[in-house]
């Protein structure tokens, strides 16, 4: 079966018996987002799981070549961005390459009982699954109603209890700062959100899109799939460009298509 399918020159690999003719295109990450993006991973196992889940690969049947290549691409990106590259990522890279090279070696036809000669991916699979299980458990744990966040324990004032003075430690002060920081962090991110939707940037995008083409239809300059806020910003940018006489907006008659071109 394998020989037949592989005979076709377009087939890069077989995934679960299905021929793969194209490499996935969705590995691209906008460079400016990379730092935050990688920061969202909890480590090499988390990154590997993401790659596997993102491409709907079967954990029990990891195509080592692809996975290793993608992983190395991320590691290269991290180095290029001069992110603090944790040793764990490099260690995992070494492990992936080791597994891949062992898979290239001829293997005994039958694995013996001791597991010698068994699939070199087995240990990696075990770790990935165990990590994923704990990752899900952590999410569930975080969703449980928690005192102080979802409800409060009640203790009303009483003269008796007041006599007992609460004791605090330096760590309690630290904990209090943590709460303050968490809130400050939310505010900080709001600023990032604003930059993301800068009218200036949208103006640049419109001007870019109009390069080359003489006229473009008004509606093609908008990307409704990005959401209402993007539409609003794009529209503001369009008005701004018209006000600055950098684009010309025309419509031949009522309800006819509106066209935009560089002024």
């Amino acid at each position, binding site marked *: 079966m394998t020989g037949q399918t592989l005979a076709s020159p377009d087939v890069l690999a077989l995934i679960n018996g299905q021929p793969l003719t194209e490499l996935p295109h*969705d590995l*691209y*990450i*906008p460079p400016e*987002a990379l730092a*935050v*993006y990688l*920061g*969202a991973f909890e480590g090499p196992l988390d990154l590997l799981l993401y790659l596997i889940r*993102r491409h709907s690969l079967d954990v029990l049947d990891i195509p080592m070549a692809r996975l290793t290549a993608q992983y190395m691409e991320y590691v290269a990106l991290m180095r290029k961005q001069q992110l603090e590259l944790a040793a764990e990522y490099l260690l995992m890279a070494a492990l992936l390459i080791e597994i891949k090279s062992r898979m290239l070696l001829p293997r005994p036809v039958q694995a013996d009982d001791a597991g010698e000669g068994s699939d070199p991916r087995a240990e990696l699979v075990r770790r990935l699954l165990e990590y994923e299980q704990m990752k899900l458990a952590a999410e569930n744990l975080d969703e449980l109603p928690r005192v*102080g966040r979802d409800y*409060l324990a*009640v*203790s*009303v*004032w*009483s*003269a*008796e*209890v007041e006599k*007992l*003075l*609460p*004791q*605090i*430690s*330096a*760590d*309690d*002060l*630290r*904990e*209090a*700062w*943590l*709460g*303050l*920081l*968490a*809130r400050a*962090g*939310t505010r900080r*991110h709001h600023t*990032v*959100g604003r930059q*993301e939707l800068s009218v200036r940037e949208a103006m640049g995008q419109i001007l870019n899109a109009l390069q080359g083409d003489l006229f473009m239809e008004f509606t093609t300059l908008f990307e409704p799939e*990005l959401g209402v806020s993007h539409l609003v910003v794009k529209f503001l940018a369009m008005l701004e460009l018209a006000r600055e006489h950098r684009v010309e907006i025309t419509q031949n008659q009522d309800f006819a298509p509106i066209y935009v071109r560089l002024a």
Partner: protein
Amino acid sequence: MSITRLTELKIVLETILLSSSEPLTLEQMRGVFDEDLGVDMLRRALDELRDEWQHRGLELATLADGWRFQTRQSFQRYLQRINPEKPPKYSRAVMETLAIIAYKQPVTRGDIEEIRGVTVNTQIIKTLEQRNWIKAVGHREVPGRPALYVTTAQLLSDLNLRALDELPPLAELGSLVAPNPYTAQLDLTGEE
């Protein structure tokens, strides 16, 4: 106001009063409701609430700085028999105020409100002053001449520290705060 509305109002008031660690002012209580309640309505509900608790172990007390539930004197003997395994805790508001004074001293009340984003209850400053953990050391020369607070030697000794610079450093705390959940979503849109 209908009877149901008044009943609901009282349930909410009872809940916030029982769970608040500091006395609540009428203004604070009004701010809790979606609609604008008149002060008269609020007072009426509080009066009824007080009556309803008349024969129980707690009383709704009016203090200089607000309203709170507290245990009646006659029930103290029961409370004395409970030996709490752990002493009580200060509210988050108290701890955050103390943390700000400790790390940013000298600060005014305005500074603290700026950082916490909420009004500082007078009771909080009083609690900390009574504990002799903070003190006013003068005024900032701006309109209103607000008092400047610093921490005391008593606080350091209660925390078992020799000097302020032995407080846990702030720099390393950043990594423990969860990244904004929206960040991840934002970045992933670049992926789709």
